[in-house]
């Protein structure tokens, strides 16, 4: 399904794909002149060339960052979506067979109306919004992505969970025929399928939590989690479960995919936190895709004002 605002911006306006190509062009030209030793000097320059070309045709929303969005080409060709393979280029390359329509989402557990909905019915009556969010991967790289989606809180309000529900659990679709990464293989990801994620109810009700159906004003592509995925920008990217087919309300903390596979490395909360390192690498800084120098990672990925109060009194070293 396609959710569009009346005043949809053509993606070419936001992401100057021509500038993206210019960047590559620039690398070629500059490097021919300066030689390989100049590579370090070239990369930061490309970033600047893209910045100057940005046009912002939409007024900045309450939750939008005004940072430069990552080019669409990069947002759609540098992905972690292990159901399509473990390399970053795999999701774009291996998702050709994936069919995002028709789509059914099953709503289960502690909810007034447990039922199966077509995606259209599920989102009916909810107003899609465009939000430009930072996205910080647990692997210490980041992007800025213009998403289109509905606030998760609005959907939850519509579904009416019972007061006993403390958590909401999401599951990705299981389709080994269309998702080669779900087939058994020793060179696989090591995760158990279907991919499971979850949020505490107050996290799910936070206005930042978005159920995304579009990227850059276009319907989301398979590699970005079509037709509907979760986006929680204050958490590491792996919390953003993709191609959701199951939403379950429960009173127990869900066993999430990465937490199950490596509990000492990936917690249930997975809040972006520069002070709590991954056991094997630092989380203090990150590389913004397209930039040369690393930048400091911000607490809650820069969304502390919106989310920090949910974790007051919690030891974030223990609840990582």
């Amino acid at each position, binding site marked *: 399904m396609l959710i569009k605002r009346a005043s949809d911006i053509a993606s070419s306006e936001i992401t100057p794909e021509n500038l993206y190509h210019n960047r590559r062009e620039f690398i070629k030209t500059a490097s021919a002149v300066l030689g390989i030793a100049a590579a370090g000097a070239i990369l930061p320059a490309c970033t600047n060339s893209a910045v100057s070309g940005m046009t912002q045709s939409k007024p900045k929303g309450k939750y939008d960052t005004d940072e430069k969005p990552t080019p669409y080409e990069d947002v759609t060709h540098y992905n972690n979506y292990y159901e399509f393979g473990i390399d970053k280029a795999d999701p774009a390359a291996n998702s050709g067979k994936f069919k995002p329509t028709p789509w059914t989402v099953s709503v289960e557990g502690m909810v007034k109306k447990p039922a199966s909905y077509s995606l259209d019915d599920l989102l009916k009556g909810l107003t899609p919004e465009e939000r430009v969010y930072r996205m910080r991967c647990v692997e210490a790289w980041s992007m800025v992505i213009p998403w289109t989606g509905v606030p998760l809180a609005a959907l939850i309000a519509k579904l009416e969970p019972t007061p006993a529900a403390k958590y909401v659990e999401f599951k990705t679709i299981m389709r080994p025929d269309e998702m080669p990464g779900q087939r058994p293989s020793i060179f696989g990801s090591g995760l158990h399928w279907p991919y499971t994620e979850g949020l505490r109810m107050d996290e799910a009700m936070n206005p930042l939590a978005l159920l995304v159906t579009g990227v850059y004003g276009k319907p989301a592509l398979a590699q970005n989690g079509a037709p509907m995925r979760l986006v929680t920008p204050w958490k590491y990217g792996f919390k953003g479960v993709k191609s959701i087919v199951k939403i379950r309300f429960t009173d127990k903390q869900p066993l999430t995919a990465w937490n199950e596979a490596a509990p000492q490395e990936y917690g249930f909360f997975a809040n972006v936190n520069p002070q709590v390192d991954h*056991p*094997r690498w630092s989380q203090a800084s990150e590389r913004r895709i397209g930039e*040369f120098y690393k930048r400091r990672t911000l607490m809650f990925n820069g969304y502390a004002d919106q989310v920090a109060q949910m974790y007051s009194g919690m030891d974030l070293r223990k609840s990582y």
Partner: protein
Amino acid sequence: MPKFNRWWIFKPAVFVVCLVPMAWLVWDIFAGNLSANPIEDIRNRTGIWTLRFLMITLSVTPLRRIIGWSSLIRFRRMLGLFAFFYAFVHFITYIWLDQAFAWDEIVKDMISKRPFILSGVASFVLLIPLAITSTKKWIGRLGGKRWQMIHRLIYLSAGLGVLHYYWRVKLDIARPLAYGAVLAVLLGLRVTVAAVYDRRPVGAHRAPLQ
């Protein structure tokens, strides 16, 4: 059995072949074929080629003894130096492109509880004395036995390299484990073949197994 009698022709050819992964990488950099995170790509590719060249270098001795291609020894130093070359580029990529000479971050990476960076740095550092003492002059200076002892450090370096790779991936450990298995086989062969051959007189080394 190829004798590589004209090894002075083969040597430049092997040299050029060993440069292909580097040339291919440089091509991809400037043709814009790398991903949205080119520094990560450069890091990954130079790292994996370091491991591959270490394995290739380590397979020379077992191959010449099992298959009987004694002349292969003529390429061993060059292959080892290429392993060092790729390790050096990999190391510089980390120091320069990845960390941009942020020494405080680099030191933190190494001495904190994370062994991932430390194992990689140790693997590289161990190769430095081997590269320096790879000349005939140094073999003479150290004496064959002692030189050989020192150069067995390559197994330690390769082991640390595999460990570094193992710690780098998330849960997809099959590829690092495959490199570990290859290294284990090479080390196993080295030990068993050495047990059979190293006691024999020099001339016997030329004979193929069986």
